[in-house]
């Protein structure tokens, strides 16, 4: 399959920032440096027409370095085309600049990512927990957070 059109343009404009390009099942995933995510987002939206942010989420690759990935699933409404951008995030500096100013819809997605994955977003207008209670401790979607919740023995099956 030929290379996605956005890859060449991104590489041309942000030569140092593009870390990796993966094709899988016809979907293109571009990994970029997190320092430049806002400029890249703005370029993708204004120049390449990816005007719709479908989804934003964090993925925890516990045991790997960098530990987290923040994933942006984009859509171009006029070309009906999808593109995925990822940024690696280190555990000891789990922050990314917000893209709320590029796509307003990122607001709640980033709040959710903070709430469940513990990745905070710089300059976010309203970074509060969204799904868990305001006084909750911990970030449940992290891989080292127990499925049963904190302070509980793991479920052993009802016969034991």
């Amino acid at each position: 399959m030929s290379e996605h059109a956005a890859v060449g343009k991104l590489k041309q404009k942000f030569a140092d920032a593009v870390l990796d390009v993966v094709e899988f099942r016809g979907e293109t995933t571009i990994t970029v440096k997190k320092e430049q995510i806002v400029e890249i987002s703005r370029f993708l939206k204004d120049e390449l027409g990816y005007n719709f942010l479908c989804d934003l989420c964090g993925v925890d690759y516990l045991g790997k370095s960098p530990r987290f990935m923040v994933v942006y699933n984009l859509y171009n409404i006029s070309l009906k085309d999808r593109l995925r951008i990822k940024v690696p995030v280190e555990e000891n500096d789990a922050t990314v600049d917000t893209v709320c100013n590029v796509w307003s819809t990122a607001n709640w997605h980033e709040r959710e990512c903070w709430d469940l994955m513990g990745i905070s977003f710089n300059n976010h207008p309203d970074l509060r927990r969204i799904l868990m209670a305001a006084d909750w401790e911990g970030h449940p979607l992290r891989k080292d957070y127990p499925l049963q919740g904190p302070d509980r023995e793991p479920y052993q099956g009802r016969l034991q």
Partner: protein
Amino acid sequence: MAQTETMTINMGPQHPSTHGVLQLILELDGETVVKATPHIGFLHRGVEKLSEHRTYHQTIPLTDRLDYLAPMSNNLGYVLAVEKLLGITDEIPERAKVIRVMLTELTRIKSHLVWLATHALDIGAMTVFIYCFREREAIIDIYEKISGARMTSNYFRVGGLSEDLPAGVVDDIRAFAEKMDEYVDLYEGLLTGNKIWQKRTLEVGYISGEDAIDIGLTGPALRASGVDWDLRRDNPYSGYEDYDFEVPVYEEGDTFARYKARLIEMRESAKIMLQALDKLQDGPILADCPKVCLPPKQDVVNTIEGLIHQFKIITEGFEAPEGEVYVGIEAPKGELGYYLVSDGSANPYRMKIRPPSFVNLQALPQMVEGALLADVIATIGTLDIVLGEIDR
């Protein structure tokens, strides 16, 4: 000197017009809303976390419980994502694809019926509620015949369907689809020309097309703001490219436009269902992928190989190749997306659901600020939210 003060009041989470456990903190200046802050999460069950500890098949019942008014749409989005991850999208048999489309469109009607019923009831038109629930009952009966459950259908499987349609249900579906136009005429007769309905919905909850894209609105709410985008037509899945249907688009961007768009969608869904019924041919309902699909029940009870096969898939599941996929489908409420990350094991490493209601609700504050308190009720209704999928 006269001084005015704004007043902060609480609405929900136990309030009939918030359609579930949605809480709104409203700052009011008299009857005018100055600021609206939604609070969600009261129904959070951790579906995404749970799915990481289950096999791909065991996750399907969890998806029923997201948007519980449209379980088959959730099933479809999920199984399409897993099939894409496995690379077996092209191997789904024709009969399974046609049945999927037919039942997803039936589900769309079911979801829109609840939207119309509760939306109208909130605004004060009670009769519509009774009629809509009468039709919904017929759909639920069809659901029960097909899957055994009235709401949480759990009917689609990775690779096809859990079982074939029972005898006679095709006639029920056809009878229902043929009458749908008549039913919609009835609702329109009660509402469209109704002066009270118009006063409560025209120019209420306005959002422009540009703002709607920016905030992430999808589905009929986006199309009523003049953006012509429907995933069934633009990125077809499950064979939608073979059906002939219209996508209603309105420019007004208000509650009345969204109302009209959804009514037309119901008519179009019935049209698609009738086309699907005409296409329906006998054939297999599961892909020929023994590593993924369960064997026919007859083999399981009669042969030791079938039993072992079933046992292995149930206990161990199947391993998906390492990679990540995103699949978005046009659910009744908008784009329902599943983002799956696989590490090569039998469980999803990460499953992120993009629930349309979650994103659509985000538009509520900007749609109601500056409007009257009573319009908040109309706007919540018109966004067609389901808290089960917002909170996951």
